[in-house]
């Protein structure tokens, strides 16, 4: 059987993830350097998941979504809330909640978070995907952007003391621009528990990549490609574009939602879900990852995500150290803006020099296809 090696890989992967997780909890207090790298690993994994999901819609199905952050944000709010309520139900004391939770506790909380988030986000993805039946290209992109902006602006738009009716009150409970910090317990915010370590993040991301690769090589993947290249021709050979486009949106939404949830509940996480997660530049970041790697290529998107995230954190660290070392002008520079400028510039240059990205549509160890 051909499938066996894949499952062996998965098992080995799980073992590695568990190992990483223990390493993470063990080294958290002890070794700052190790923790730094594991933090990057967690961030990379989450972005790989997010980029892999976006790649299904943008790369494989050729529908241009620029509202990915909306799903990520939705997943973050939902996942954060579920995690907080589950943690409270588990009667974890407040003091412990503000620290990283144990691996055993994560075994209970994370599945409780991931499953409902995936289901709800998939449902929302279905709704957002429906316009793809009527709209094409730019117009569809606008709708996806509209979706994420509606979510973000709704959360931002209401603060507790101005909330007048039940709808606005409910929205105000999400904390507005201050961010969501879970329910109140004894007059104090519970905060979002920091529970998902490398085991969950790297594990889920690896599983998503694996799934996406299988998807691409299956009949489903071929159908998506047909829809991307020419909808009319695809429907002429019996591929129903509507079904495939909407399914692509559903898958991408579920993946993005899980990524968002993990972002909210990751180890050493912020303990808060901020509406900034849904800002357009977050969508832009994911688009950059996918495009850098080559849209349509699963390994390309994953590598793009790892590259982006690694450069992101390493450059931040480098800038911090340089500033500490007294490189004068760096102290006054807005590091985030500088980084964003560099990423944007890179993206524009990549578009001009190599519009198809690093990999094009190819996979990592795949030979170049003969030109048609």
């Amino acid at each position, binding site marked *: 059987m051909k499938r066996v090696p894949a499952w062996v890989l998965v098992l080995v992967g799980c073992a590695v993830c568990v190992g990483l997780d223990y390493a993470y909890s063990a080294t958290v207090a002890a070794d700052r350097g190790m923790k730094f790298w594991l933090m990057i690993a967690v961030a990379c994994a989450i972005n790989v998941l997010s980029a892999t999901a976006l790649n299904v819609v*943008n790369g494989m199905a*050729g529908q*241009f979504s*620029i509202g990915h952050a909306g799903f990520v944000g939705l997943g973050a709010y939902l996942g954060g809330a579920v995690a907080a309520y589950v943690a409270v139900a588990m009667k974890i004391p407040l003091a412990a909640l503000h620290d990283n939770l144990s691996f055993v506790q994560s075994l209970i909380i994370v599945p409780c978070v991931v499953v409902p988030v995936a289901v709800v986000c998939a449902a929302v993805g279905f709704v957002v995907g429906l*316009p793809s039946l*009527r*709209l*094409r*290209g*730019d*117009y569809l*992109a*606008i*709708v996806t952007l*509209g*979706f994420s*902006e*509606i979510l973000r*602006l*709704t959360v*931002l*738009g*209401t*603060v507790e003391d*101005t909330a*007048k*009716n039940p709808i*606005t009150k409910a929205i105000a409970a999400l904390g507005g621009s201050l961010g969501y910090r879970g329910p109140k317990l004894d007059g104090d915010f519970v905060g979002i528990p920091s529970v998902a370590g490398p085991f969950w993040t790297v594990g889920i991301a690896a599983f998503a990549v694996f799934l996406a690769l299988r998807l691409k090589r299956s009949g489903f993947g071929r159908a998506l490609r047909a829809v*991307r*290249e*020419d909808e*009319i021709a695809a429907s002429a050979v019996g591929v129903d574009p509507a079904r495939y486009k909407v399914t692509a949106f559903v898958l991408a939404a579920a993946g993005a939602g899980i990524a968002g949830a993990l972002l909210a509940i990751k180890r050493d996480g912020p303990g808060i879900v901020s509406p900034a997660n849904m800002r*357009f*530049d977050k969508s*832009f970041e994911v*688009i*950059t990852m996918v*495009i850098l790697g080559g*849209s349509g290529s699963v390994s390309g998107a994953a590598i793009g995500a790892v590259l982006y995230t690694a450069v992101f954190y390493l450059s931040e660290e480098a800038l911090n150290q340089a500033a500490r070392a007294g490189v004068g002008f760096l102290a006054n*520079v*807005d590091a985030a*803006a*500088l*980084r*964003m*400028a560099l*990423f*944007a*510039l890179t*993206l*524009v240059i990549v*578009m*001009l020099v190599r*519009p*198809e990205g690093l990999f094009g549509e190819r996979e990592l160890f795949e030979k170049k296809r003969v030109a048609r």
Partner: protein
Amino acid sequence: MSWLLNALAQGSMIALIALGYTMVYGVLRLINFAHSEVLMMSGYVAFLVDDRLLGGYQHGGTRGVLISTAVAVVAAVLLGVGIEAFAYRPLRARARGATARIAPLVTAIGVSMLLQSVAQLAFTATPQKFDPRLAPPVGYVVLIAAVVMAGLYALVHLTWIGKAMRAVSVNAEAARLMGIRPSRVIAVTFAIGSGLAAIGAVLYSTTQASIEPTMGSSIGTLAFVAAVFGGIGSIPGAMLGGVLLGFLGELVKFTSFSGMKDAIVFLLLVLVLLFRPAGLLGSARARRSSRRAWRGRARTFAPSTGGIRRACAGS
């Protein structure tokens, strides 16, 4: 009455900026995300010239605002044309196939992000404000916008370059067959759109908004929605869309959802797109253009289908 005038003023400012989106979309079928950053940058130029060089309200007065507006318009034109020349033009020459549809959009987003971060680096995130005494009366805002838009209408309908613009927007290839150089028309389109955005930026920032690196994404997005609302690619559509949004914004203020004004705007945008995908005024034309896109594609494949047809006929 003052309520009406306010709404109209809001709307006409939005419309001024929306025109840039719609005109570029008309000739290039590209959502120029960088337009909002042209708006933001010209706001900064106007502010800096007025405040640092001309001494703000104290020394410059209204004359100072006029001069700085002129400088901002020039700067915006240069920036807009520059973006087109350095980021979009090379792409038009080489991107093809599936990337040809997405690459320009990604580039536009990239340029927008780049300019926004550059502004943050250069001007910091701290909002800047014009002296409130420099704000023109609401009536003037409406008047200025109306005059500018009337001028634009005349330009598009009565001059050669305006006719060339319309021809390119309908069918670029046919326009080239008439000897029109699309690259020149495109450059002029960017120039005009950017100039209008600069005027809009000055009106906006003198009357209400503060100037900050993210002002492009908030005001620009609103303008973009207006353009889609009226039917992107349609000049009267952008004007109508802007005014409608102005009224909408003022109306929402009366409800308990006032904080969610922008969310409601987006909700409406999505609904408009769903039920009238080409906007209020753009329907017939957009449908035609999509049909033409299909026809164009069929033509590209003509030799092969011809072969198939021959093969069928032979068998």
